């Protein structure tokens, strides 16, 4: 009984607070001076004025669905005219009639509907916007992702949640997805190309995973490039994960809904001045690409050592490797040594020797010795050589009539240690400095 009373009192206080909070953005004299109908009418007039006062139109950051993101966010563009005409443009992948991915403009009608609140309704078919709303037969739904006649769960009737001169926040009347409109500050095609350039800058096919750091908390996200990404508590085998949609912007990207991580805003991210990370509105959350794992766990590229930065001992070992190669075949000669994955039978991940296999130096081959590399902390590489690592078939073959394996093992032993990595690019590095922690030689790695 006591608990019930407390609950009722708590609910009452919460209700009062909610009512009060809902009104705080109005001036005091506005609170009761107008009837709701009149207020909606005045809001409609105000919104109409804002919509029309956009020389370069509006960017619509459009999202679909009513919960877990199934589709990415889409950048659409709109220019509103007084007579009820709206021109909407976009280049999204769901454009029809062979226009998928192509810049397309389409004219249709809009209306400011006065319901319980104000609704921006796009109320005739628009080739750019309405495919998101079309229920289509379930068998024809895009990618068959939603098989219930709901199509992509987009909305054409958008409830106006707030409006400012430069920003209108809307919410789908049926599915509740948040849609944001901001005045476009450049022509639409330029916005598209600038946004694409930013997307290419901060995402790529090689690295599509990121660290999200907020204070002492670190989360992980995968798939940002898709505009729909998974955020999780662990990189591998996450216990919890969620799917979010975002729109790319010329400065970075923006998630559909306002959210927080460890109390910090997790909504809009922009590339910082150094170009090293994406940061939130107040700089308290950073998103860093997993370039360190990309280098450490590389499966395709070989990160070769800059030979000028090697120690004299190591340079001497390379001379010996060259000698051993020639001992095996006089046409062979040393080319590079690096970290990565060797080629051929029994390929290993570790230390890879690249050698020329003809005198004209037009053909190369590799020989590899397994090495354990790890990423103990963000931006660190740990190289461990225990002495009994296996070799690949090529190194085994070369070693049949030479002593190359022993020399390669000596070289591997010199690398053991932990390094701070400094990439030449934080989103898709092609080179990286290795700074030995606790003293030792520093190295420079480069992709061929």
């Amino acid at each position, binding site marked *: 009984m006591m608990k019930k009373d407390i609950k009722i009192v708590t609910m009452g206080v919460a209700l009062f607070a909610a009512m009060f909070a809902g009104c705080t953005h109005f001036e005091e004299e506005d609170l009761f001076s107008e009837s709701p109908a009149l207020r909606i009418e005045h809001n409609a007039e105000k919104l109409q004025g804002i919509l029309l006062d956009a020389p370069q139109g509006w960017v619509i950051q459009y999202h679909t669905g009513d919960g877990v993101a199934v589709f990415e966010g889409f950048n659409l563009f709109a220019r509103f*005219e007084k007579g*009820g*005409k709206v021109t909407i443009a976009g280049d999204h992948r769901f454009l029809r009639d062979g226009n998928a991915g192509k810049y397309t403009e389409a004219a249709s*009608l809009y209306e400011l509907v006065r319901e319980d609140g104000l609704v921006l309704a796009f*109320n005739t*078919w628009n080739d750019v916007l309405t495919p998101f709303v079309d*229920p289509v037969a379930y068998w024809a739904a895009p990618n068959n992702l939603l098989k219930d*006649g709901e199509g992509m769960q987009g909305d*054409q009737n958008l409830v106006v949640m707030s409006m400012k001169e430069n920003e209108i926040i809307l919410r789908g009347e*049926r599915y509740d997805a948040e849609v944001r409109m901001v005045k476009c500050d450049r022509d639409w095609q330029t916005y598209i190309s600038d946004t694409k350039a930013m997307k290419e800058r901060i995402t790529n096919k090689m690295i599509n995973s990121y660290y999200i750091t907020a204070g002492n908390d670190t989360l992980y996200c995968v798939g940002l490039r898709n505009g729909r990404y998974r955020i999780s508590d662990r990189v591998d085998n996450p216990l919890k994960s969620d799917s979010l949609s975002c729109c790319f912007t010329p400065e970075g990207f923006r998630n559909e809904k306002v959210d927080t991580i460890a109390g910090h805003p997790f909504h809009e991210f922009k590339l910082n001045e150094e170009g090293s990370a994406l940061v939130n509105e107040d700089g308290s959350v950073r998103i860093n690409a997993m370039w360190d794992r990309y280098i450490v766990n590389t499966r395709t590229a070989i990160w070769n050592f800059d030979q000028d930065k090697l120690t004299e001992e190591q340079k001497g070992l390379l001379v010996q490797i060259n000698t051993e190669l020639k001992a095996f075949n006089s046409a062979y000669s040393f080319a590079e040594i690096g970290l990565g994955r060797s080629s051929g039978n029994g390929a290993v991940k570790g230390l890879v020797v690249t050698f020329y296999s003809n005198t004209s130096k037009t053909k190369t081959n590799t020989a590899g010795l397994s090495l354990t590399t790890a990423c103990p902390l963000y931006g660190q590489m740990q190289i461990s050589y225990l002495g009994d690592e296996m070799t690949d078939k090529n190194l085994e073959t070369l070693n049949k009539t030479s002593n190359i394996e022993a020399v390669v093992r000596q070289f591997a032993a010199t690398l053991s240690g932990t390094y701070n990595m400094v990439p030449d690019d934080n989103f898709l590095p092609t080179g990286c400095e290795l700074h030995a922690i606790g003293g030792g030689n520093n190295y420079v790695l480069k992709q061929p």
Partner: protein
Amino acid sequence: MKKITYLISVAAVVAVFSSCRGGDDFTESIFDTSVPVLDETKATYPFDKWLYENFLVPYNVDVKYRFDLSASDMNFQLTPADYNRSQLLAHFIRYLFYDVYTKYAGDDFMKQYGPRIFHFIGSSGFSPTTGTEVLGTASGGVKITLYKINEMKPYSEGVTYTGEDVNTLNENYFHTMHHEFSHILHQTKTYPITFGQVTSGSYDPINWHDRDSVWTHQNGYVTHYASSASFEDFVETLSCIITDTDHRWMNRIINAASMGVRQGDKEDILVLIDSLEINLNDPSGHWNNFTLYEESEYSDETGEYVPTKRYVLDEHRLLGSAYQVVNKEATAYVAQYKYKAYRKFTSFKNDFLPWVEISTKDDLTGINSLMKKLDIATKWYTENWGLYAFTLRREVRGRQNAINDYLKEIDIYELK
């Protein structure tokens, strides 16, 4: 704002009006059409003006081509209609619906009984639970909602409508409109109770959509939906007379007659075909070159195919062949139905009809029931409304045949 007030007042007047229909003598439009509702600054002004002059003034009809979420069925995810297609459909509604009824029933008929609101929806109303697709709805004789507008062939300079395009118009819109309009009429003047008694034992409002067309025809219904309830059967019967193609009617007749007829039915069938103005001697008509197939269905108890004791046409055979069921051993999928060619016919009149058996079975329905209901419905139409359903069919078909000439006369506007 003025427009909103006006529409509200129309709704109020309609509400009053609908409660006192019948017997009034109408001359011009029953509502005050002097209130300005047109805004020259609107991007849609030319079309709005056309609607005003062709629907609002003469018939007090509001054609809502703008999607109205609050006035739509929230059970479905729906899209707005395309502006170009909405204009074209509005022209077709005037040409193939209003002008037809007005020509034969007089100027006041559609003013008095016509719907007051059309609402155009771009997509279908897909029902995920039943797999059905809603093409149209009517609300209390006031509003007809038409779906699937965006599947119409759009207008462009010099566009031509083929027979197939016209069939699509009928299937998606005009069948629905005549169906819904017939509801309005029978809600005004009740149809005879004898209509529902003809096939009273087999209406099924829940699972009608599980029945196939062969079943519905052989049990005396024009369509699947007609078998859901007698009032739906009644309006489907009238709508099919007006809008269905010769091909569909002959399929229906062949299906319905193939299981046998009563004494005298063969003569009545020929009269029906004549009333439908189907050329029985047309050598290209499929009714002069078709095969009937014997159907059998897989039994998961015996693993054998058991005859269903019905003959089906090739179109149904192709549909039925696609169905699969798990076999008796639950190890694989097998065809649910098998079909075996039974007999080929080279003439409906001289080959098929003589083959059809005269039956005295008590439970025989088929063409006999179908024709009884056609007779009741068309008589009711004539006695109560002075309308001849077969005349309306002829008029509609004549207009459809001239549809490409009509398309040259109309103006479809871009947004200003």
